């Protein structure tokens, strides 16, 4: 069995680190500083931590739950199906309610400390004057998950080990402190993959960067995997850095957020491998993939809207006026 331990951390202090996410490497090192057990250091595999706004939301259409979800961002939603693993994994956090200023809730509040841009741990929103509580705050969380490749020997990691981790720059000055808000374990073999099994063609979303080249000693450079249908224009690449003690290593990556066609033959196996992550530095968050049935757009409203357009087009063919 393959156990994945999901952890939702609350950001307790301003954060000065990688702006896209808290890297798995940073989270791993923070855990490693807390434990004396060598097995944890040797086997623990840590995902990148994605920023989540502690806000009201509704379950995405692909989720096994339906409708309004209350303060979705403040705890871990139940995981029964494969798609449920990814509710918080996309920075766009598409579950945020549209009756609230969700773009503002999902943009990190940037503050200046000594000329450096730092993300605040919470964001304040005004209310009309005269109301008793004139301001309300929205708290930031960080979503990550841990596993040990299916051995299930070092996960789940105890909550008191994970509580009080510090990540990013300025850790000794109190920056980047995380507390545990929620944690739960998921067995990958027990999930419902039927939405994937029912499809004929698939798309891969790069949830985290995929490493092509690395300066890290003992790690190999890699090609773009053969089972990616890379478009003619190619894939977007980026450089990033991994800091290990006093040393800094440059990684060349395929940037996350892109989607490519899946040209392999076993989408279910790829789906599970994508959660456990593939390629160099996959222990530290790189190479996380999500498999989607082709046409299952990650922008849900676009599917709804284009269905409406198709209806209008059908009406037009049938003699309707074709106007929207």
């Amino acid at each position: 069995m393959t156990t994945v331990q999901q952890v939702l951390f609350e950001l307790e202090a301003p954060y000065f680190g990688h702006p896209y996410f808290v890297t798995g490497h940073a989270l791993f090192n923070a855990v490693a500083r807390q434990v004396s057990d060598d097995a944890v250091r040797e086997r623990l595999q840590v995902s990148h931590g994605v920023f989540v706004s502690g806000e009201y939301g509704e379950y995405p259409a692909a989720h096994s739950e339906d409708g309004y979800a209350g303060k979705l961002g403040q705890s871990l939603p139940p995981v029964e199906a494969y798609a449920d693993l990814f509710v918080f994994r996309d920075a766009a956090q598409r579950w945020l309610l549209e009756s609230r200023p969700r773009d503002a809730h999902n943009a990190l509040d940037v503050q200046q400390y000594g000329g450096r841009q730092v993300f605040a741990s919470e964001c304040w929103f005004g209310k009309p004057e005269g109301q008793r509580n004139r301001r309300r705050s929205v708290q930031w969380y960080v979503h990550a998950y841990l596993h040990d490749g299916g051995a299930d020997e070092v996960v789940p990691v105890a909550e008191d080990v994970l509580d009080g981790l510090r990540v990013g720059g300025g850790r000794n000055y109190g920056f980047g402190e995380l507390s545990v808000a929620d944690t739960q374990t998921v067995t990958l073999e027990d999930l419902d993959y039927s939405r994937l099994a029912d499809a004929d063609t698939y798309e891969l979303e790069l949830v985290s960067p995929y490493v092509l080249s690395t300066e890290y000693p003992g790690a190999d450079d890699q090609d773009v995997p053969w089972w990616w249908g890379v478009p003619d224009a190619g894939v977007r690449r980026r450089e990033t850095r991994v800091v290990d003690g006093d040393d800094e290593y440059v990684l060349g990556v395929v940037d996350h957020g892109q989607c490519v066609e899946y040209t392999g033959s076993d989408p279910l196996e790829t789906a599970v491998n994508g959660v456990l992550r593939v390629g160099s530095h996959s222990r530290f968050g790189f190479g996380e993939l999500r498999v989607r049935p082709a046409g299952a757009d990650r922008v849900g409203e676009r599917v709804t809207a284009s269905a409406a357009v198709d209806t209008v087009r059908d009406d037009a063919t049938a003699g309707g006026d074709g106007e929207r």
Partner: protein
Amino acid sequence: MTAAAAKSDGETEAPPMLAVYRHDVHKLRGRSHEGAVEEVAGQRVNEPVPRGADADAAMLSRPRGDPEQTLPAHDSPFRVSLLTGETVTKETSVDAFRNAVRELVAIEEPESAHAAWLESDAAAVFNEATYYPYTSLKYHVLLAAALLSNYRAGAAFDELSLVVDDPDDAVTPHRTVLEAGPVSLRMTADPDGRPAAALGSAPARSFADVWSRLPELPLNVDGERQWRVLDAQLRRVRSWSVAMQLIEDYVDATSGAGGDAR
């Protein structure tokens, strides 16, 4: 031929590519749609935009259906900045922008109107709708114009892409939707070798999705953390006019600071 491309220009008194820059003048004057007048500064204004381009542009930036007030403190035509969280002007009345609005309206040449909107600071002070205060009227109008220009050329929405242009090249009339520092973005059915990402099957608040699918970004994210911070924010923002205004505001706030914002 698709439903969108089959639509004709309909009737506008002003030439269609001028009417689109004048269709929301009532918002620049703090008026409701119902309170919109037909003429400002001697020009025909507030005409419906042909081919559904206004409705499609609206769908890129705000929810469909009846608006709900999303920010309790705010019921004003003035925009709230995603960068600072504050209303972008200290003015209390739209009268302060009267001259700037009249200058925009008075332009009688379509390409000049496009250029003026692309550079306008006054239009960026206003939101698209008071209940969606982070949206930007400036970018709503530029998006509507780009869609209309493409629809008039025979393209349907699902044939369009967002294109990253060289900021040193001249803008493309009506099609360039944003020009700010290193960022020049355009909407077209023919990217012609420039880095491009498809807008998708229908207009939706899809900025984060389209931006993160671009094969090249116009920001030097490898070199400078300040651009990684902006890129990270743009992957979170779904409304097009909110995201485009954020790019403009961020470039304005950081480029003068001599790389201060690391």
